[in-house]
């Protein structure tokens, strides 16, 4: 044990807000323990040091939006043993995937005076569209305790215990009053992946789907319920077109309400 090299950890960033990798630094109680189990070998947000060229575990944050990044992700895959995507950008394309439904040239000219300086792809795509991925962690942002669970699972050679059921289940376990049934507040909880700890309903608001679709979501049935609450097609499109707009189930449901 004494001579065994500690597993090397790398953290990579693509198009994102940095929030998911910040989650690691936000593990105030666990950070030094995690740092004791792995060698932080390439994590620019936290360190200047770059150790070695290959990494046992890579965490990938962000989506692919530029030609350069579309190539860089393959280099990251080749340099990595286990590769885990963290957050909505990496797993579904993120909020910046709203461009996928519009003309990116028009978007560039709205934001930049000299669009010719900007090199960008038409679509923001998840990491799995480009390379094979060992595990995907949902959330905008991810839940830091789930991150610690996934890391410790891979360090110990076991499967991560990350349930793929809906936010509703978490809500029931937490003992929240259902905001949709009790207050008529539209909620994406029934189709949204668990993991946040059902925060929104606990704060008297409907879930807005930041953890993306759960396993086998019935989005059409939920839309029907929302319509009964008086939500029109335009607002249904907006609801499914949020931080996981490009996730398959949410994309299809939003398109079904677009005329």
């Amino acid at each position: 044990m004494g001579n065994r090299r500690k597993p090397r950890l790398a953290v990579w960033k693509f198009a994102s807000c940095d929030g998911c990798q910040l989650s690691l630094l936000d593990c105030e109680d666990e950070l030094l323990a995690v740092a004791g189990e792995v060698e932080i070998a390439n994590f620019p947000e936290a360190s200047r040091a770059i150790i070695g060229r290959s990494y046992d575990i890579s965490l990938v944050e962000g989506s692919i939006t530029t030609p350069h990044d579309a190539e860089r992700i393959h280099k990251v895959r080749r340099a990595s043993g286990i590769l885990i995507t963290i957050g909505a950008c990496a797993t579904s394309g993120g909020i910046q995937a709203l461009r996928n439904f519009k003309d990116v040239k028009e978007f560039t000219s709205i934001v930049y005076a000299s669009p010719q300086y900007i090199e960008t792809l038409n679509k923001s795509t998840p990491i799995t569209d480009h390379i094979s991925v060992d595990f995907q962690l949902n959330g905008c942002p991810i839940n830091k305790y789930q991150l610690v669970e996934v890391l410790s699972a891979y360090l110990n050679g076991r499967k991560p215990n990350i349930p793929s059921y809906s936010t509703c289940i978490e809500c029931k376990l937490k003992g929240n009053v259902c905001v949709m049934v009790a207050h008529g507040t539209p909620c994406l909880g029934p189709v949204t992946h668990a993991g946040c700890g059902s925060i929104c309903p606990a704060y008297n608001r409907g879930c807005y789907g930041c953890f993306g679709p759960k396993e086998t979501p019935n989005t059409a049935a939920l839309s029907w319920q929302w319509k009964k609450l008086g939500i029109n097609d335009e607002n249904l499109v907006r609801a499914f077109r949020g931080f996981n707009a490009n996730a398959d189930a949410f994309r299809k449901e939003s398109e079904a309400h677009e005329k």
Partner: protein
Amino acid sequence: MKSRTIKVDYLARVEGEGGLFVKIKNRTVVDVIFNIFEPPRFFEAFLRGRNFTEAPDITARICGICPVAYQMSSVHAMEYALGVKVDGQLRALRRLLYCGEWIESHILHIYLLHAPDFLGYEDAIRMAKDYPDAVKNALRLKKIGNELMILLGGREIHPINVKVGGFYKVPAKKELENHLDDLKWARDAAIDTVKLVSTFNFPDFEQDYEFVALRHPDEYPLCEGRLVSNKGVDIPIPDYEKHFEERHVEHSTSLHSVIRARGAYHVGPLARYNLNFDRLPQSAQQAARDVKLATPCNNPFKSIIVRAVETVFACEEAIRIINEYEMPEHPAIEIQPRAGVGYGCSEAPRGTLYHRYRIDDKGKITDAKIVPPTSQNQKIIESDLWEFVQKNMALSNEKLTWLCEQAVRNYDPCISCSCHFLKLHIERE
């Protein structure tokens, strides 16, 4: 002819992707580029067509380190457009949430991102082996800030409880009072932090900056006030675009801001401190005096001390707000959409953040403009590098490169934000 280049391809210990390039010819700096290659994400474009109520949730995603800043600037801008004012305890709770973010963000920058430069470590984790107590206290301080955000915002990154008009749910007094002991410990730890970081070695480097920050009649600024500078700016927030403009430069996916009349300016802790020292609570003023921190302070490397002083303020302000808190009857005020244009500025931990929205009579956003602190500081960062390298030409490339990185980190740049920011490359010819 002897040439030299100093180059950092991927600047570490900052938020986002950027690099630096400095070219030296015959012992003279001839070019400095602070290069932002963070991929563009087009927030201002896809905000068009969204509902005004969505702005705080969407714009929070511009930055994982200062989401509350985005939420605060956006709700103030929307409330301006809608002709409503959030006051009393709801306003106080917004300040309290912002204090949580200031504590979390400042401590992250002081101990985890910036102190390792002064103490000669690659990162805080390696620093922790020699300074275990400092790093442990830092993590506890950071957690106290995050816990305020969790209580008031639901979570520390991208809080879910902020809305135009107030909050979805407000805490009971007892829930806030549970944080008082921690906050008192945090205030004392912040005062110790001021003492600790003031013992670092600071390069002798002072510049004649134009500092810009909010100034409020009786508070240290967070969300409201007039925009003022030490060189004559004194304007209401809606006049921002008459005096400041963004320019798009080739090497950057970020836009550079300038004061139309004079050029580069400096936002952030140093600016706030120099323009608002008299608005700091006594304990924060005393902490600054005890370590002989000048006012004005014109050495950007000393921004680390100012961040610590501001952390003392944030803890004091949080304690004051909790002591005076009475739970409001409604978590938010009712809002009816109407057409209009709204302007909002707030002081993100790294500087002034400006939002402007136009909304139609249904409450749909038709136009959005967001000017983050780092794009406002980008020109000043380049001019600091220019002057700093010129002054320290005799240093080896390795030493000079590290110091240039440190000079950029003085600004706690938030590159994801400014991308609409860093590589360091010093070229000597």
